[in-house]
């Protein structure tokens, strides 16, 4: 596969390490009432869609950036690649 890195352009997927569902960005609030339950869901429960999937890839043999890749699990078509840091900020993970 080829991942079109937002800064570096198209790069072989072999340069990357796959992690999984981009929902791992959404780490729960450790002080919330339901923190234990929320962390259980965060740690163990994933959607497994046949189709569009947002997933985390790490450019280990590149610029060490984490990316959020939107990939169709049926066709492997990649429709979007974003810097995970930007996604994290947009999902409200700023301080």
């Amino acid at each position, binding site marked *: 596969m080829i991942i079109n890195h937002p800064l570096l352009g198209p790069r*072989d997927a072999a340069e990357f390490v796959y992690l999984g569902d981009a929902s791992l960005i959404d780490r729960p609030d450790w002080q919330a009432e339901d923190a*234990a339950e929320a962390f259980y869901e965060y740690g163990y429960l994933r959607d497994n869609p046949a189709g569009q999937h947002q997933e985390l890839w790490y450019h*280990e043999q590149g610029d060490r950036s984490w990316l959020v890749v939107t990939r169709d699990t049926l066709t492997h078509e990649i429709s979007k690649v974003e810097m995970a840091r930007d996604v994290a*900020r947009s999902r409200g993970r*700023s*301080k």
Partner: protein
Amino acid sequence: MSQTNRIKGGLIDRNQVMNFTFNGKAMQGHAGDTLASALLANGQRLVGRSFKYHRPRGIFTAGSEEPNALVQLRSGAYQEPNTRATVAELFDGLTATSQNHRGSLEFDLMAVTDLMAPFLSAGFYYKTFMWPRAFWEKLYEPMIRKSAGLGSLSMEEDPDSYDKGFVHCDLLVIGAGPSGLSAALAAGRAGARVVLADEDFTPGGRLNAETLEVDGTAGADWAAQAIAELAAMDNVRIMTRTTVYGAYDHGIYGALERCTDHLASSGGKPRQILWRIYSKRAVLAAGSTERPIAFGNNDRPGVMLAGAVRTYANRYGVTPGQQVAVFTNNDDGWRTAADLAANGVAINAIIDTRDAPAVCDVPGARHIRNAAVVDTVGRKGLKSVTLTDGQVIPVDCLAVSGGWSPNVHLTCHQRGRPTWREDICAFVPGADLPPGMAVAGAANGSMTLAAALTEGRAVANAQIKALGMTPSRKAAPKAEDEPRDCAPFWHVGESKNRAWLDLQNDVTVKDVKQSYREGFRSVEHLKRYTTLGMATDQGKTANIPALAIMAECTGKTLQDTGTTIFRPPYTPVPLGALGGRSRGKDFRPYRLTPSHKWASENGATFVEVGNWLRAQWYARPGEQGWRDSVDREVEMTRNSVGICDVTTLGKIDVQGKDAAEFLNKVYANGFAKLAVGKVRYGLMLREDGICYDDGTTARMGENHYVMTTTTANAVLVFRRMEFARQCLWPDLDVHLISTTDGWAQFAVAGPNARNLLRKVIDAGHDISNEAFPFMGCGEVTVCGGMPARLFRISFSGELAYEIAVPARYGNSMMQVLMEAGKEFDAVPYGTEALGVMRIEKGHAAGNELNGQTTAYNLGMGKMVSQTKECIGNVLSQRPEMLLEDAIKLVGFRPVDRSQKLIAGSHFITKGDEATMANDQGWMTSVAYSPSLGHSIGLGFIKSGDTRKGEVVRAVSPIHGTEIEVEIVSAHFIDPEGERLRA
């Protein structure tokens, strides 16, 4: 034997004579021959035995689809089995042998299996070798193994080398036949970066095998001119002898280049290269493959595909027979008759299944309409054919054409399904092509030469436009549309004898019908049940006729019957090529510690730790075994001072205004208040609360920390910290960079550690216990100004430091430390002594941090802060992980001190049966403690912290041992930590 079947013409160089042997017989051929064409030239019709029935077989095709002519090439360690003679280029000195027979090729003892054929039908193995069960291992399997397989391996290491490579292009053109050349010319002229790959050694495809003309010149000459034009373009790369074998995601194609297979010796160069081709667009111009018609005894040497027969005549100047007949269901078969007749070869008959007029005039040939071959005679070489009406025609070669199948394989590698086109009786690529691919020429069902040339250009131009480039305006090459009418005809129903479909796997029409009767009707079931389409040729000639027969049985259309799924590789790829350079000591990279040179000059035995080579121990003369060396290293360290290269521990430079806050989040214990000049032990958890890694982090400055990780987890911890930095807390000002390789770091441990270091650390740096206490750190200089980092940390439990210098000075630093340490009898120690000392001290390491254990299990539960946000602390509090009787890390010593503990032993309470139900835990690490004079161990046992003094049994059913052990503190040495604070 002489070249009795050579005729005039062909693309061979008759001035170059190539000597070769087949089964020891000396033969000659010419440059430009394949082994197959040379064998035919020499009149060698019988070339092998079939897989199952050991039937005599000859050459069937002239290309990579060959099912029959599999031979062994070369000898000794270079021997290569199952090579298709039809694609093996002849070279001077080639030795080839036939395979799959016992005794000689002519008198194969295994031919008896042919007489047993009635018992060996499809599914035979599945039905027969089921019972009795006990027979399987002793009788059936050895017997099957002995008779299975085709050629044999040399059983020696492959002496050739292989390489890999990466090629990038705008447009990949797969196949250099008429449509491929036309496409490459169009794209090349437009200025695109083009790769043109072809499996053959002479590009041109069927232009080299035909008498058709392009732009008014002979096809082969036009192809040579086209190649010359392309070769002159800087933007075009021509890769001959290169098979594009797979279409992968996002325009990546796999290709195998055979670099030296056509040479007597590789000359030390890679024999083959496995290319990864990155293309923006691709044109598949893979041509088509002719298929046979099934009739009785249609597998005899001399029965060949019609296109192959004319290829041998036109390209190689060889006639496969002297008395030839053609059996066809289409116009194309007639051209074989015409081409051979033009070369003076006698054409006895043209047997056409159609009731149609002659396609062309073939002098001397009888045209037999509406007829078919029902049987043949000639066990080791065709003698005659018998027609449905009973007439017998004497021939030594029968050229058969059942029509042509487009080579759609690569269009299906991403689950594309081909569609059936009734007008050409063939499957053509479906609409669901791999993204970026377009198909041209015969591969697309455009069967005539004119159509192929036109379509090649048109498809390439469309791809050029899609790339945002401007197509060349130059017109397509011109040719005539040759007649290509075809009427479906798959097998001769009147045949009573076995009619072969898959020659390689000995699958007959009867087998397909049986498969249908027994319910294996889907094409995938048919394949598995009969082995149709398996092995080296993947049924390139056999599949479509077999599917047609299944369609007849089921009454379905061929479209509804479908094909099996084509998967890479298109043709076989040697495992050696897939392995590339990764073999032997080059299997993976190795990493050396900075003091490797010194260690290897001083008796070190090395051990692989991941990719690292680390000194395991340093043997001295007179020592009887590793234990002698390790015991001595431990004793000398604990008595005076020892030095160990610990560079392999991961080092991560952490900087930023928010570095402290960040570290406080990635470590389970507190890091917010670590003072400058101090080091702290840190424990990392996974988000699920399981321990992940540990190490120390030193605060070198206000915003500067140096973290160490375990050797094994250095890369993983870095990756995880980047995740935390970018994805979890994206607005912390913190920056990470690995410095593992940058600093040579040495543990200097033992009561004389400070005395030794004082000799190398420059004056002005006070390292007294008061000024530089346990868990202190700082920047110093050594040996007159060399910048160094000093950490007062101890893994051994002794007074110890770790000192780091820039790695390029590391080997020298080791020498200096040993030189300065002479007066203290300093000793270098390796990983074994390091391990012994950490077990004596009760430090957890990889055996204890094994991905299953928690801080609570390790006795560090209180370290996990619940008053801050950090990875893993929430889930570490799950009730199941905090049970009162959870396993706890403790020490163990044998009640009988002379007994040796065994790692992996499980603990059983005294009096209990040694069963899983009574399992209390397990021994993680053991060592002989030179300091205590007996074996010691660390391990996890239920409620271990409250059971000190209890005696339990350490049971190892694998070793058949049961040892009584006493539960003790994990800290065997200096439990109060007085030494390391000294």
